[in-house]
């Protein structure tokens, strides 16, 4: 065994060996959204700390006295959506969701991944091709018969929510803009932040990026958008740890340079920022100084804005938004351990009646709810949330995570936006009310 392998095995222990802390109290089972709706998944305790005792920690079965010890004794771990609620609720500190992800990766290691799982992991590839051929891809993805065929052949559910590809990537839009503006001195870390846009803002939701840039500018901060790749989470979720590590290293290499200079790295996707903050180290075992440096410099946008506010530096000239706003906190946000910063920010907007829907999971859990066999589970998990949002009668809802927004929008027909889009709207209403000049940037929204 090489030293690298030894180190990998040792760090797996941090997650894997936390099963020793398990009291078998079943608290994790009480919060599991998947076990709530289906008998297929026996719940986090059984596939997590309980099954962990029988795992060898290796991908291939190990022969002990002629008996093959399987890498994972319980294939039902594949029904885990990875939402992380079990880890959150555990009073003993067992890393249950992380354990499940690792054992799923071990279970699938050495086997050829399903084309579907592989494809759902390759968000950069799918995104680039999708944007390149967007007039065609958008037509295909919103065509009923084609989606039916896709369900049969690829295994992506015909009704799964898909976003529309943008006409070009954020990266290329940004480069063009920079070119037009000509070379400018890059402001220092007190005047600018680095934006980790993730795949959604790059390929699908440029309006979220536009909102971020304008909000930061209204707070005296410029935005730097370095070249970057997918954070790797879709690969982690689809048991493609090797690919995920490659992505992680590429991002760390770029971002560490900025972090070292004192720049903060801001993301608009709570799942990307959580991956960089926690999973590069905890799940992918990347433990060098740069990984830690980058993790420590990374902030979710709402966390960042609330921090500005607490330091008295947030521009709070929000205009009045007289509306009800149902808000769903994504599972990945809970794993940040920072409360619900969007709700605190909404409270600064006069008239805005934001209401936390207080529901565990919308059911999409990244790419989980898109898969043919898991789609009905995802919809059942999210059903109470969809009912609440529909019952609120509100014209729009808010949620920090893109796949959740797509899921909610698809299931409820209610337009669902990133919290910063709501805040930007409030700023703009404030401009009109306060007589300040409106921004000259492109309008927010598609």
């Amino acid at each position, binding site marked *: 065994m090489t030293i690298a392998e030894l180190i990998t095995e040792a760090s797996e222990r941090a997650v894997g060996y936390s099963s020793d802390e398990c009291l078998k109290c079943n*608290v994790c089972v009480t919060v599991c959204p998947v*076990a*709530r709706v289906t008998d297929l998944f026996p719940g986090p305790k059984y596939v997590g700390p309980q099954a962990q005792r029988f795992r060898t920690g290796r991908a291939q079965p190990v022969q002990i006295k002629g008996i093959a010890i399987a890498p994972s004794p319980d294939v039902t771990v594949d029904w885990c959506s990875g939402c992380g609620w079990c880890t959150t609720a555990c009073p003993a500190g067992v890393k249950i969701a992380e354990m499940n992800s690792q054992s799923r990766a071990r279970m699938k290691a050495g086997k050829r991944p399903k084309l579907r799982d592989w494809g759902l992991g390759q968000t950069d590839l799918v995104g680039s091709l999708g944007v390149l051929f967007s007039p065609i891809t958008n037509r295909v993805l919103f065509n009923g018969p084609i989606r039916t065929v896709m369900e049969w052949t690829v295994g992506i559910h015909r009704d799964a929510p898909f976003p529309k590809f943008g006409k070009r990537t954020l990266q290329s839009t940004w480069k063009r803009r920079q070119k037009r503006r000509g070379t400018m001195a890059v402001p220092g870390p007190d005047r600018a932040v680095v934006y980790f846009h993730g795949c959604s803002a790059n390929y699908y939701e440029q309006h979220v990026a536009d909102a971020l840039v304008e909000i930061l500018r209204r707070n005296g901060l410029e935005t730097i958008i370095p070249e970057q790749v997918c954070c790797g989470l879709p690969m982690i979720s689809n048991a493609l740890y090797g690919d995920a590590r490659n992505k992680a290293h590429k991002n760390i290499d770029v971002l560490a340079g900025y972090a070292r200079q004192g720049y903060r790295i801001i993301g608009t996707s709570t799942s990307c920022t959580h991956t960089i903050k926690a999973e590069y180290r905890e799940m992918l075992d990347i433990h060098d100084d740069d990984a830690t440096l980058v993790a*420590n410099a*990374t902030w979710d946008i709402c966390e960042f804005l609330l921090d500005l506010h607490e330091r008295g530096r947030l521009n709070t000239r929000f205009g009045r938004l007289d509306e009800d706003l149902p808000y769903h906190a994504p599972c990945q946000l809970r794993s940040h351990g920072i409360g619900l*910063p969007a709700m605190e920010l909404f409270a600064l907007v006069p008239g805005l009646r934001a209401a936390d829907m207080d529901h565990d999971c919308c059911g999409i859990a990244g790419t989980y709810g898109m898969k043919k066999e898991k789609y009905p589970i995802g919809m059942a998990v999210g059903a109470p949330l969809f009912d609440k949002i529909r019952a609120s009668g509100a014209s729009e809802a808010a949620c920090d995570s893109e796949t959740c927004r797509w899921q909610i929008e698809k299931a409820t027909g209610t337009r669902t936006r990133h919290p910063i889009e709501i805040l930007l709207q409030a700023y703009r209403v404030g401009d009109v009310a306060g007589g300040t000049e409106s921004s000259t940037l492109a309008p927010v929204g598609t």
Partner: protein
Amino acid sequence: MPSADVVVIGAGLAGLTAALTAAESGARVHLLAKGHAATHWGPGGIDVAGIPAARTARDGIGLLAAQPGHPYAFLGDDVAEALEWIRSHLAAGGAEYLGDLDTPLQLVPTSIGGTRRAAILPAGQAAAMGPWASGERLIVCGVAGFKDFWPEAIAASLSRERIWEGGNRPASVTHVSVALPGLASRHNLNALEIARRFDDPAWRAKAIEALARALGAVPGSGGRVALPAVLGIREHATVLAAVREGLPAAPFEMPLVPPSVPGMRLYAALRAALLRLGGRVVIGEMVERVERDGRRVTAVVSGAAARTFTVRTGALVIATGGIAGGGLVAERDGRLREALLGLPVEAPPADEWLAVDAFDPAGHPLEKAGIRTDADLRPVAADGSLPFDNVRVAGSLLAGQRNVRDRCGDGVALTSGRRAARLLSAVPAGHAEEPGSERP
């Protein structure tokens, strides 16, 4: 970094009580906890003082208050008020409780075939109280395939006279096991899963019919039927009414091993009340340390992904629990450490930690370990001084109680949680209200 008037650490009964009390007085409250515990583990009753020498809980409070160092010495007078307060909140949240301080303490049967002293129980368990009439039978009714409840074993144990301490008991204890729709072939069934099915009206109707049929086939009539505590979670009140209506004997729930469905109902009702008053609840990270300005705690710092999560606060309630909850940590060198502030722990010497029987009727020596406070629940330092102005201790972290032996934990949690929050709400907050900030 959000700011609060009061931060409460711990999501058990003491923490929830303190948070809700503070929120009622208009304080901005953050409740932080590393996970769920006490409520999800316990039987869901409100144990105030279940000691053999007492006829009622009120008697018990008096006897415990006279014990040297027991928290009831300074909290005992508050129990009645606290009880009334929590019951109104629970009833509003669909979790009605029956019995009070003057209800005679009675032996109620448990799901391991023993008995325990209780007087204040959730409505679903209340039919277990009340004297057994002459000739009155008890049927223990299980769910086929459900491994957390063994009717045959429970009935066999409850048939023994000594389990009832020679007193009033059912004339006969029989058992039956019922296959409920879609469950008989299941492995790994847990209580919560069955409770959720009872919430569904269509499934419920079929299940009650199956239960009624099986119970009807048991010879004899009337009496009471003990069921596992799985009678609905969100719709518990409706389920309970339907089960009462549909069964030929008076039903009551027996609390089970965790996850405790009655405890989850209690937690849900109190959490919902707290959220309605604008309280913030953050579960999942351990509070690592506090920031201080002299004798005042100014902020609470918990773990978070890649960094810490700091809540600025005017005051702090520590309701982190005892040894089981993690508020006290036993070191290998034979010391007990208070996990957050390093407060001095009042505890027996290490060579008295080990007892032959963890559930000795005389109590375990470590049960009394905890933090000594003054009557205002301020922690007292080793030299008798009061090191913190704006910190209060509540719940099973308080020294001097033996809540396994004396079943006083819920009473101490309620009264200390209430008092802690009231005293802190009177302390001027450590910071000014943010201009322009509105509570949602």
